[in-house]
């Protein structure tokens, strides 16, 4: 098998047909997450910068955009953590991005993905704080697992190992003002209306036995915005409970059920 058949002729293009190899049985853990269908086009959407837009007029643009990006990043993070062997670069970049978003949201943000009535700011802040801790906890626990296993399996490395040198890393990145971040050059989720805000997110990528209900519940209710009282998919209590559990971090923290009950 191999590159063995020469087609065509003359002095022009030579096309080599490659005899396909037999399919190997792929272990499920080795399957990378499927890349969902690429979007046909990427429209530039800056609706949230348009002061005439009803949602914008009422809502702080930064908050709405940040919170949807936050949700997306949380999804990505959890999906990445659920891989049998996460791509460390991807993980680190998503976590750093998440921290940036959080830092910009922290001052005044309410937590959007909760249906009406909106949560009390105090609860939202604590949810944000706890979700950060939960994220750190889940990422840290996974990475600790990796390093623990590394200690078991690694071939002894002689001589030059003067001990692991931790990079001096800052904790949270410097707090970035929300408006600084959302300059005109950045696009955000690209849809014309709040209703369609999450329509372009293909959550099939994040499908798992645990995530299926939660993905629905992440469609945002409109925190502010007249006449856009959301036709959110009805969140039943079970879904909301699950969402809260995820945000709060069932592995690390126990919190009373969030608002919306």
């Amino acid at each position, binding site marked *: 098998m*191999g*590159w063995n058949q020469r087609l065509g002729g*003359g*002095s*022009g*293009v*030579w*096309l*080599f*047909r*490659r005899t*396909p*190899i037999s399919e*190997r049985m792929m272990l499920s853990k*080795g399957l990378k997450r499927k*890349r969902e269908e*690429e*979007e*046909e*086009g*990427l429209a*530039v959407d800056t609706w949230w910068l348009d002061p005439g837009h009803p949602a914008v007029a009422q809502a702080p643009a930064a908050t709405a955009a*940040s919170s949807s990006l936050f949700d997306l990043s949380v999804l990505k993070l959890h999906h990445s953590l659920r891989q*049998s*062997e996460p791509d*460390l*670069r991807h993980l*680190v*970049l998503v976590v*750093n*991005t998440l921290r*940036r978003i959080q830092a910009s949201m922290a001052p005044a943000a309410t937590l959007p993905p909760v249906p009406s009535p909106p949560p009390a700011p105090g609860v939202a802040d604590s949810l944000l704080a706890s979700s950060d801790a939960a994220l*750190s906890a889940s990422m*840290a626990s996974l*990475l600790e697992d*990796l390093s623990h296993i590394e200690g078991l*399996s*690694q*071939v002894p*490395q002689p*001589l*030059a*190992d*003067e001990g*692991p*040198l*931790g*990079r001096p*890393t800052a*904790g949270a990145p410097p707090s*970035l003002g929300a408006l600084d*971040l959302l*300059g005109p*050059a*950045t*696009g955000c*989720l*690209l849809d014309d209306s709040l209703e369609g805000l999450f329509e*372009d*997110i293909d959550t099939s990528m994040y499908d798992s036995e645990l995530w299926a209900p939660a993905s629905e519940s992440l469609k945002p209710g409109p925190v502010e915005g007249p006449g856009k009282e959301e036709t959110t998919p009805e969140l039943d209590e079970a879904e909301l409970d699950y969402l809260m559990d995820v945000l709060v971090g069932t592995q690390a923290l126990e919190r009373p059920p969030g608002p919306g009950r």
Partner: protein
Amino acid sequence: MKCFSRYLPYIFRPPNTILSSSCHTEADIISTVEFNHTGELLATGDKGGRVVIFQREQESKNQVHRRGEYNVYSTFQSHEPEFDYLKSLEIEEKINKIRWLPQQNAAYFLLSTNDKTVKLWKVSERDKRPEGYNLKDEEGRLRDPSTITTLRVPVLRPMDLMVEATPRRVFANAHTYHINSISVNSDYETYMSADDLRINLWNFEITNQSFNIVDIKPANMEELTEVITAAEFHPHHCNTFVYSSSKGTIRLCDMRASALCDRHTKFFEEPEDPSNRSFFSEIISSISDVKFSHSGRYIMTRDYLTVKVWDLNMENRPIETYQVHDYLRSKLCSLYENDCIFDKFECVWNGSDSVIMTGSYNNFFRMFDRNTKRDVTLEASRENSKPRAILKPRKVCVGGKRRKDEISVDSLDFSKKILHTAWHPSENIIAVAATNNLYIFQDKVN
């Protein structure tokens, strides 16, 4: 067809060779492309763990027009999927990188690596076969010694040329994280392999030991904010190497300074442009490839939107910045959503360091002439490549009126990405990998 030579630093003919699989399976996706030091051989690795080597045809007076075409020389399975029983993880067989060793005898040597294991392969030709053994018959079966009454000297007889690849060394069990780079040292005795957090130095002769020369793993993994993305040895100074990070920085290290090169000798970083700040600033600044120029004076880095050339003597900013596809800057949110923003594009120098090349989406690839500051966008596609014609430059229209031959940003196909390219060390021949297709373009022959 019109000649668009005035737009091009070089005129590239469409492929003499397009190599592709008849069935596009995941395993056929090309994951690395590399010319050897003379340009006579071109190696590709794919997701299925196979290596295919092409050899350039010798010049022939009889068929002048066939000069310089590449044909398949050898194919072998370099890596197989493995299972790490300790961690219950499958190890992909995908070839991440191939690097050739300089040729020192009749055989060719190359390093190929997947996520965890580096292998040294010897590719050699055999065109003679010994015949006339005493203890074996012609089929290789052992003969009963008691039946042998005379002795003869085996002779070498010609046979059909056979190219065989044999694994000579296997360098395993030294990387906890995924190997992203390998680089052969100019001393030709050592090489390095880099994963997300560590870089190891190997001697070609020793497979059960490696020296750790860079370790950025924090004591507390919760503090991890940065990973190694690429690494390369200096082309002439065997003590010097660079590595890039996910935060857009490059560190140059000197192995003479200490055994563990945790303290860099030079630190290259460009300050962030405040007008372009966004949530995605860090992701798009993450360097996906770093390459020394052939001269050793410059390094080139590729991040998501740009290619930068740095002078080794100036650390605070690059000397040149080239926009690869700046029209994507306003679409970062979508590209983050569909993970395209994490794509890792490579970049290459031409032989004289005057032109640099890198890939983009929609099977486009870009070339930048450092001297004239001209750039061109070309496309690797069957439809646009007719025999004997000249590649037509492409243009992306960012808004407003679209001209006839332009393509709109919204029509770009983000599943067709050119991540891997290679440039012949001395001639204007380039190899471009587009998913499962390999295009080899040559400069116009007079």
